[in-house]
């Protein structure tokens, strides 16, 4: 085989991959589009008759916290203001090195509580349990540092109610979020987990622990992440809901049937993507055991979170996410193409491998190959520029389709200027940012391959929206 035919073959493979990638994501968006009317109908209908109102099962809200002294009191306060008839809040102080426990002690007026702690899931030793004298439904578990997964497991051990909702300490929930995320558990007893969409709070106005006015970030980096969240974390997840193959429920906001979570073994502490791994495990165990179950994603219960505003923090986050993806897939590989795997094993799992896990390799490889080929003269200018134009146009098209879905569903960004800003940002996103993220994802994949030591990095967040609390 001559060099020319090898180069030709590689170029064709790259081209076909890019086109297939575009087609696959357009198909995902089409599935999300088909799911939208069902979710909207249910929402409209539930507004009129309030069919479940007043009989919602009690929920244990678990809030793992590590070094959150500045925001923890406000976060607990916002949870306590959620529209929900009966809930308990369990804050798990995961061995914070700052004054998180002191802040909680002062704000909640904590007293030691002789909890008969029930250790159903393994976790690092609990140093003490406290109860708020101001809010009888708030308890604080103080434990040795073991990571978010470990803290969540400790929270599950202390939870009294049949449903649990794990919430990040730096997240902001809509008042109705909890009520809405519980609806799937009421309407379908097979439901074991339900997640809501997570959006970026940077640029929005927060008052009293709640988001008052939705805005777009003024800084470019979080603005570009808004587009990513729209495309990947909203419609990319919604599309899998009708097939009962939702791959992840965000650790920032997700509800679980406690017994299903405990039976599955809780959160794994040896992975960087504990939220995704748990959901994949629930799919695997239930599918392979032929147990009826349902994992749902809802577009309307909104959780707002702080997006990284510096390249270093964003890089750490993306490396971690990609590694978490690889670990989740690897740990649950028996689901892949298993005769009982259903849509999760035959559609979602291969999709994640081909487009999410291996995507950065093929995409970046394609870019590098084209650039090198053009530089060294074995790729013509016509092929090079056509290929680059294709890569950018596909990115623009996918972002535009996500914007359309957003417009006809949630319509969170209400001002016309928001639309214009997002449309303009999508151009910038495809001219460098997307490629940079691919590089970080490749690093994450590499670190998983070589089993590099896990490193969470320094997750400094600006929480600029918290300043008005």
């Amino acid at each position, binding site marked *: 085989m001559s060099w020319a035919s090898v180069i030709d073959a590689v170029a064709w493979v790259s081209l076909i991959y890019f086109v297939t990638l575009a087609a696959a994501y357009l198909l995902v968006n089409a599935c999300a589009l088909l799911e939208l009317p069902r979710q909207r109908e249910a929402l409209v209908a539930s507004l009129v008759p309030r069919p479940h109102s007043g*009989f919602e099962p009690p929920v244990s809200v678990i809030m793992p916290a590590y070094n959150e002294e500045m925001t923890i009191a406000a976060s607990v306060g916002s949870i306590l203001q959620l529209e929900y008839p009966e809930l308990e809040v369990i804050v798990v102080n995961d061995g914070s090195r700052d004054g998180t426990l002191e802040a909680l002690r002062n704000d909640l007026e904590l007293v030691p509580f002789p909890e008969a702690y029930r250790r159903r899931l393994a976790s690092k030793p609990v140093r003490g349990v406290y109860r708020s004298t101001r809010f009888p439904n708030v308890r604080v578990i103080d434990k040795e540092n073991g990571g978010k997964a470990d803290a969540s497991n400790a929270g599950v051990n202390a939870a009294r109610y049949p449903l649990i909702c794990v919430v990040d300490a730096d997240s902001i929930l809509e008042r109705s979020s909890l009520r809405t995320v519980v609806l799937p558990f009421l309407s379908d007893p097979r439901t074991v987990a339900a997640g809501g969409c997570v959006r970026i709070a940077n640029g929005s106005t927060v008052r009293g622990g709640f988001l008052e006015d939705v805005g777009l970030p003024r800084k470019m980096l979080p603005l570009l992440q808004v587009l990513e969240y729209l495309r990947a974390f909203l419609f990319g997840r919604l599309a899998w809901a009708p097939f009962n193959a939702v791959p992840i429920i965000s650790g920032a906001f997700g509800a679980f049937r406690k017994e299903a979570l405990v039976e599955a073994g809780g959160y794994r502490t040896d992975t960087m993507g504990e939220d995704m791994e748990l959901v994949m495990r629930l799919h695997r165990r239930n599918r392979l055991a032929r147990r009826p179950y349902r994992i749902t994603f809802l577009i309307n219960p909104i959780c707002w979170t702080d997006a990284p505003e510096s390249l270093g923090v964003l890089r750490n986050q993306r490396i971690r996410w990609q590694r978490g993806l690889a670990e989740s897939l690897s740990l649950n590989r028996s689901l892949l193409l298993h005769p009982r795997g259903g849509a999760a094993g035959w559609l979602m799992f291969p999709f994640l491998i081909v487009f999410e896990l291996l995507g950065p390799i093929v995409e970046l490889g394609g870019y590098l190959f084209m650039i090198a080929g053009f530089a060294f003269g074995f790729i013509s200018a016509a092929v090079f520029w056509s290929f680059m134009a294709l890569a950018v146009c596909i990115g623009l098209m996918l972002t535009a389709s996500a914007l359309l879905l957003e417009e006809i569903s949630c319509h969170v960004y209400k001002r016309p200027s928001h639309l214009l800003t997002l449309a303009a940002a999508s151009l910038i996103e495809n001219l460098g940012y997307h490629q940079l993220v691919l590089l970080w994802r490749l690093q994450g994949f590499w670190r998983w391959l070589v089993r590099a030591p896990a490193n969470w990095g320094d997750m400094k967040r600006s929480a600029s929206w918290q300043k008005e609390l």
Partner: protein
Amino acid sequence: MVSDIASDPLAGTAFWAAAAALVATGCLLCLVVLARVRLLRRLALSRRAAVLWNPLLAQCADEVPASLPRLRWRDRVRFLLLWCNAQESLRGESQERLLQMARRLDAETHARRLLGSNTLSRRLLAVVALGHLRARDFVPMLAAQVQWEPTLGSLLAAKALVRIDAAFGVGPVLTAAATRDDWPIASVANILRECDPELVAFALSTAIHRQIAKDARAPGLTRLLRLHATARREPLRDAVLKTFSADVSTDALAAALADLWHPEDVGHARRLLHHSEWFVRVAAARALGRLGTAEDAPRLTASLADRQWWVRYRAAQALCGLPAMDEPALEAIGASLTDPFARDMLRHARAERASV
């Protein structure tokens, strides 16, 4: 380069694929703009309808407005939505005045037409509205919908049915509640909550007796027993007690224990405190917490050493709640315990009691 694109299949394919993606992007962005325009128009209409109708609906809290504007065809869905919400939030005579207002606007005709809509939410809105409008000729259709419609539609039909004719509707709703496992019990309870508890009690009692006679081990019995909170408890007592003498599932036993309220029935809780299923023991411990006497202290103290956390927890709570069980008595029980789990749990429950 143009000639290269034309002659090189790779360049040509990439170029035309890029062009197609660009055209698709343009089309999608146009659709975004169109969607925004449509949404703004819809919001404006909704705002206008709210400005027009909300003050009139609010006025119904005191009186029926003397003059009403004409209900236009294009406003019918928005009006019915606002009117149904007003019906849900107002009570008593205000609801009657809302009904008069709707009759004057001929809302029933609009609601009936919506029943034929292709849009599910409009059809559901029509069902809810006709329920509020007390459209009696609609009852047979609703009774059929309760049995056959998908979950949400059937639940809304059930709600409309009991609203129009509770005496007739509660029976079919309970029959469906026993057989339809897609109906969340919470939703059924929500529907029955609007009815007279006496009426629900008699219907529920009949349904429980019928279910025991038909198939006592079916999950339907548990579902019916879990509806006890919506009914007056006295007329239900016989039906609940019959559960304990029939060959029922353990789920039904636990549900029946939750329904016990008469002090004379405490024997069932005492007997089932040692049942082999832990959730029955939990229910028994809770029942003893409600009905138990000082003589139950030794039983509950023994349950503090149960192998199940929840049994220990409920037994400790029940023990703390027994009549005449003061702190010194609990202290003495705690001192007598040799099982560390039992001791921890009693300390936990005492701390909980102290913090309330």
